[in-house]
């Protein structure tokens, strides 16, 4: 396995290789790992007795045996492992969950992929391809009880429109380390939604690059961390083509003294990426005292010839005035809190256009906040 030359940006990974031997074991002092509790992820950094992530085959989903050679999707997406966990998963996963939407196919029903693992720790390889002019919504349900170290390689071909919603809703013991790599084709659009609710540790590296001009990538996230949960979202958008759009919006609600979330938003606009639009936002809502939310937006512009480029980041306390206002209209404190939290996430959840799916996500969020009363009451309004 040859080492590919790293791109010329401080934000891009330094070592690109599928060979685990080419990657250093993270110690926690490295820039990429400095927020992560690496001590709790020791088994993610060595190759032991591991299982592979699987999914039941369906019309668009197949399980294919893993091969050393780069797959068609990996080649199309220019994907090569960029750290030790991704290289281990790439090398040792025995099979690949392949979600393939044929060209020109517009899929009305949501493609639901229920992922499962067999061992305590499982390597996951997922490949998603949306053929040219296709249109589909894929939901990856990551609510397994086991730990996963995985990669999701996605290729959105020219003029395709792909939505991928990943739902991390496993028990409070499970650990997830994922690397996503998406390539957005000419005039294609990609909407990636990360809903992180469960797990003890979730670390998600999400990379986007473009394969032609006119592509649009939206990366949205809603996360809820409580008690001792750790969640880390590292975004890297490589604006390598002209006239593309990227929009990154991550919103988190934190509660409990030990909860810790990290959001790193790296956007690199290359010299050739003229006429692009990029915006990234992270907002965190602290529901009580104690939780820690780290938020680091980072915009690197090599050209001034852009339509717009901006970022924003804010972490704030739960607003008692909002509670008072709602309560003064007869709404109980519990319901008022729920309305405020739901309202906080609304711009992300509104992007889930399928009504059933949106309701499911809202219900899961509300269950996690420990409040359920409102849904029946308001379904009539939504209807």
């Amino acid at each position, binding site marked *: 396995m040859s080492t590919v030359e790293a791109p010329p940006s401080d934000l891009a990974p330094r070592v690109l290789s599928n060979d685990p031997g080419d990657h250093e074991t993270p110690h926690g002092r490295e820039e990429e790992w400095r927020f992560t509790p690496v001590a709790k992820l020791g088994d993610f950094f060595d190759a032991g007795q591991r299982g592979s992530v699987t999914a039941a085959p369906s019309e668009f989903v197949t399980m294919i045996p893993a091969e050393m050679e780069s797959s068609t999707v990996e080649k199309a997406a220019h994907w090569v492992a960029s750290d030790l966990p991704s290289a281990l998963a790439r090398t040792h996963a025995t099979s690949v969950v392949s979600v393939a939407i044929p060209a020109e196919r517009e899929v009305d029903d949501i493609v639901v992929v229920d992922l499962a693992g067999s061992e305590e720790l499982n390597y996951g390889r997922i490949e998603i391809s949306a053929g040219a002019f296709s249109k589909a919504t894929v939901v990856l349900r990551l609510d397994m009880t086991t730990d996963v170290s995985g990669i999701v390689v996605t290729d959105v071909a020219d003029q395709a429109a792909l939505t991928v919603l990943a739902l991390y809703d496993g028990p409070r013991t499970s650990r997830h380390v994922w690397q996503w790599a998406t390539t957005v084709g000419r005039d294609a659009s990609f909407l990636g939604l990360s809903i992180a609710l469960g797990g003890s540790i979730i670390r998600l590296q999400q990379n986007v690059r473009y394969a032609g001009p006119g592509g649009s990538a939206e990366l949205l996230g809603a996360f809820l961390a409580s008690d001792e949960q750790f969640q880390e979202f590292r975004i890297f958008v490589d604006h390598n083509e002209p006239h593309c759009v990227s929009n990154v919006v991550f919103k988190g609600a934190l509660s409990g003294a030990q909860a810790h979330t990290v959001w790193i938003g790296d956007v690199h606009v290359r010299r050739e990426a003229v006429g692009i639009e990029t915006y990234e936002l992270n907002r965190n809502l602290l529901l009580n005292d104690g939780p820690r939310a780290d938020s680091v937006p980072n915009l690197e512009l090599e050209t001034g010839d852009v339509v717009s480029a901006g970022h924003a980041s804010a972490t704030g306390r739960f*607003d*008692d*005035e*909002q509670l*008072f*206002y*709602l*309560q*003064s*209209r*007869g*709404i*109980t*404190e519990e*319901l*008022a809190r729920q*309305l*405020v939290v*739901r*309202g*906080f*996430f*609304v*711009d992300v959840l509104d992007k889930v256009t399928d009504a059933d799916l949106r309701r499911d996500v809202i219900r899961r969020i509300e269950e996690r906040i420990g409040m359920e009363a*409102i849904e029946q*009451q*308001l379904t*009539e*309004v939504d209807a």
Partner: protein
Amino acid sequence: MSTLQITDLHASVVTDAGETPILKGVDLTVESGRTQAVMGPNGSGKSTLAYVIAGHPKYTVTQGSITLDGEDVLDMSVDERARAGLFLAMQYPVEVPGVSVSNFLRTSATSIRGEAPKLRTWIGEVKEAMAGLQMDGAFAERNVNEGFSGGEKKRHEILQMSLLKPKIAILDETDSGLDVDALRVVSEGVNRFQEDSGAGVLLITHYTRILRYITPDVVNVFAGGRIVETGGPELAEVLESEGYERFADLTKA
């Protein structure tokens, strides 16, 4: 018939710097069908009085009592007070991002009435109430108070009042920030509400302007955290021409 009875009310604001007494012995009775005006200079404690009645957590009552038809209001949580029949139209309504007006109104009405209003009649009810305040229907899809103009916020408060039908409504400077047309529309809304429901109104204002549209039964002058003079509507005329100057020394009390 309902009666809100405020007796010898003392209250402090709690800040990081400590407790500052603001209300210093307020006695006031608001009854169904009647309108009590409370007028006073900036900073005299009018909003504090309104907030204390509604149960804002920043204020603590150090002495005195508030009862609604004999029930101890101070013993109730903020939402219990609203469900008991109290309503506060706020001077500075709060933005609630991501919560639409229609969702908010329906959740409030459900909470106050104890059951969700039937959807069909509810939609008609909201439409009519909005039309009465000359509010555009598109308004219902906006987020609560987010990006509302001053006038829109005040109309929205009165809209809530007419839908929630409280026994006693406290209007804290509902007139401020309104141009003449809006003031007339909002005042008519208040009058209509009171005629229809027979509610009692506590009208807090700094200016006499709104009293041309809403006729108070009693005018109270508020200064230094208490009522310093009480009279009929003619007292408002005196204040109009003389201002609050002659009460200035009382503010120190």
